[in-house]
């Protein structure tokens, strides 16, 4: 399970949902694994405003990962924009053979984007448990799959 997913999962127990402590779930005895994936810059930009950064820092600390900066990156931090040179160079777009294939602003991911990608989309919890900070319920993770099935009395 990607750390990205952990930034969105909450305790499944209904009475917990209203308690702020039901998010984030806290990993215990976690075995981490890096699973490489292609970087998806537009996705990172899309998801960035939805991240709960303070909670990502908490989880990183709990997993023993290096400290994260106290403020989240901004969208502009994520790319080394080549589009900034495009407007000063309007002729190049006219010269290309297939202008529709190459919209202005083909962007190169910055080191910040690569780091964020590594942390959120490639760092995975393979084994362990996720613990609710409100009710203490434990969700087991096996082979990267978390078990969110609840016993009937907790539904």
């Amino acid at each position, binding site marked *: *399970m*990607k750390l*990205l*997913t952990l930034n*969105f*999962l*909450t*305790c*499944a127990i*209904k009475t917990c949902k209203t308690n702020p402590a039901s*998010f984030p779930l806290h990993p215990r005895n976690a075995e981490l694994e890096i699973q490489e*994936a*292609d970087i*998806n810059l*537009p*996705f990172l930009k*899309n*998801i960035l405003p*939805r991240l*709960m950064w303070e909670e990502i820092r908490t989880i990183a600390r709990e997993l023993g990962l290096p400290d994260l900066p106290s403020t989240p990156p901004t969208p502009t931090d994520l790319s080394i924009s080549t589009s900034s040179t495009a407007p000063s160079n309007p002729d190049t777009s006219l010269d290309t053979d297939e202008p529709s294939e190459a919209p202005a602003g083909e962007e190169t991911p910055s080191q910040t984007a690569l780091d964020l990608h590594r942390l959120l*989309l490639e760092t995975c919890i393979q084994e362990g448990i996720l613990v609710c900070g409100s009710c203490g319920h434990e969700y087991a993770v096996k*082979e*990267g*799959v*978390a*078990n*969110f*099935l*609840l016993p*009937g009395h907790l*539904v």
Partner: protein
Amino acid sequence: MSRPEDTLPPDLFYNDTESRKYTTSSRIRSIQSSMTHRALELLALTSPSMILDVGCGSGLSGEILSQTPGDGTPGGPHVWIGFDISASMLGVALEKDVEGDLLLADAGQGVPFRPGTFDAAVSISAVQWLCQAESSEEWDTPAARLSRFFNGLYASLRRGGRAVCQFYPKNDTQKKMVSQAAIKAGFGAGLLEDDEGTKNAKTYLVLTVGGGELDGDITGVVRGMDGVDVEDVRRRARGVKRGEEKKGSRGWILQKKEQMERQGKVVKATSKYTGRKRRIQF
């Protein structure tokens, strides 16, 4: 043709043997793939999005969500999270090394994500399983399951988000029960039928969450699409001006009924499936 959900609960029906058989059948793969593409067309995503796949099974849809526009996935590649009640199905997905994250979870228990997590959701051939009445537990009735599912789904989508659920309703009553549950949860809902009346008929429940920059009106989603037969569950009522019908007339009653249905209230035709207490509100 027998309906698998009439035989066993889903986690037992989709055991290791059945999950493997399901996933390797080229007929099933091609049907599920074309329905996923149809759902994506209805979602009309234009950039890489965060998507929930409900009842993701072995990840047949997920594999498509991970593809690029060049491979036929609009706005892709998307990042997706799938959940399913069958550990065997998820096991097959793991073997295939799908790119999305997988969870073992029961849609009838809710959707365990914080509000506004997803841009969109898909569910292919799964929701009819929520309508089964096999359980004797009080919390586990079809109505309660559908309500937990759609309420959870609604909350987990961002404002302006969309969901498309292709499902196989057993009959019109079930179709209605499912759409009413979605509407009651707050969704704008429309039913779309492909190949209606044939044995290949496919039903898509297209759901929108108001707000945000997307067109929250379901008629906007399907406007201008080819071969689409739209059955907007709200449309008839909207066409009639308020107060146009004479109070007490048949037209007036039908209009009232439709208003109530739109608000997700249980009206006569659907009540026999709900055995719970009714709260009449005017």
